[in-house]
């Protein structure tokens, strides 16, 4: 349902990649691999619609993503930043993120998600006081509470401890086998079935 043809990305005066094609159907996920600086993050940002490609187009269900209204509704993107407001609590972060997306998120659902990812007792603390690993776990809670078909995650396993890595892998696995789609970058190999590799 997601397709890209002839994608070319230029950063400054360096051509990162050119004429890249890829397609993604329900139940599939892509593992984007490459050395540092190969353009993995740039590719993910292009697919998320944050940047315009120098050439080529990206389509969601046949429509260019710039016009496709429901592309954004079905998209979940996480870049290098955790997208957390440090002065707000984990709970508030989830609530506001949902509200800004025009979605509704009940208190119970949010609390349950935070507790599922090991933040029980810390939901009402300002994110500032959480450890780096705990902050990343809030991201996991956001992934779990957002109803999105396509997940684009850039280095999602960074700063996660072993248990959290398991939790995220399970999350992605369940999502993909349940008919969702995902595009990930990671330096690790990931034991999630149904994946293809895109090498930059």
């Amino acid at each position, binding site marked *: 349902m997601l397709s890209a043809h002839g994608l070319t990305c230029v950063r400054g005066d360096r051509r990162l990649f050119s004429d890249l094609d890829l397609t993604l159907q329900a139940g599939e996920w892509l593992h984007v691999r490459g050395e540092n600086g190969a353009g993995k993050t740039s590719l993910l940002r292009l697919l998320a619609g944050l940047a315009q490609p120098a050439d080529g187009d990206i389509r969601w269900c046949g429509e260019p993503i710039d016009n496709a209204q429901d592309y954004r*509704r079905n998209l979940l993107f996480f*870049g*290098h*930043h*955790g*997208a957390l407001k440090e*002065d707000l609590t984990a709970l508030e972060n989830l609530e*506001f993120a949902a509200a800004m*997306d025009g979605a509704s998120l009940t208190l119970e659902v949010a609390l349950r998600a935070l507790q599922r990812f090991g933040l029980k007792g810390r939901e009402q603390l300002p994110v500032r006081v959480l450890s780096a690993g705990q902050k990343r776990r809030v991201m996991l809670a956001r992934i779990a509470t957002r109803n999105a078909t396509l997940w684009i995650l850039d280095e999602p396993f960074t700063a996660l401890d072993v248990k959290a890595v398991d939790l995220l892998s399970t999350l992605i696995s369940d999502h993909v086998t349940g008919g969702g789609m995902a595009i990930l970058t990671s330096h690790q190999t990931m034991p999630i079935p149904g994946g293809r590799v895109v090498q930059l």
Partner: protein
Amino acid sequence: MNAILAVARRDLLMVMRRKSEVLTALFFFVIVTSLFPLGIGPEPTLLRKIAPGVLWVAALLATMLGLQRMFAADHADGTLEQMAISPTPLVMLVVGKIGAHWLVSGLPLVLIAPILGIQFDLDASALGILVVALLLGTPLLSLIGSIGAALTLGVRGGGVLLSLLVLPLFIPALIFGAGAVEAHISGLGAGGHLSLLAAMLALAVFFAPWATTAALRIALE
């Protein structure tokens, strides 16, 4: 609509947890206005004459100080990215942010201006016109300023560059805002000036958010 309110509420909540941001701009406004009598002399007729201009220039500068923080924090922690790919159109979220910014940086200036105006021996009706003019003018400054804030995100020399970009665009607001009070004092009536200020505000409400949104997307590329 909910999304606009959500983003505004979020920004206001964050400011309430760090009140120093509000107060800094306010104190700047007060201090700068006090500098002028100190520099020029306390003679009442002179002060009355320069009051509208001084108060307006100080309001301009105080607004400028606060502009940088409109988008900088969101840009740094990745929340701006999330807003850019949100199903809610970015332009609406931008309107919410500008509104929240005005409530924090602009409205306090409007509220404290009468007190400062008394320092310059302005009479009650002139103070009233001053408040109305600032009420129309400060959102205008926030709207125009948001374009500059978006353009200079993450750019070297951000603060000074922002001033250079934005101050020339503030000049019409300054002319008509200060002019309104002066016209009232001299008996000509502030109606014309205030109408023009209102017209500029209406124009800015319709066009500035689009320019700001375009600038934000450019900054995110």
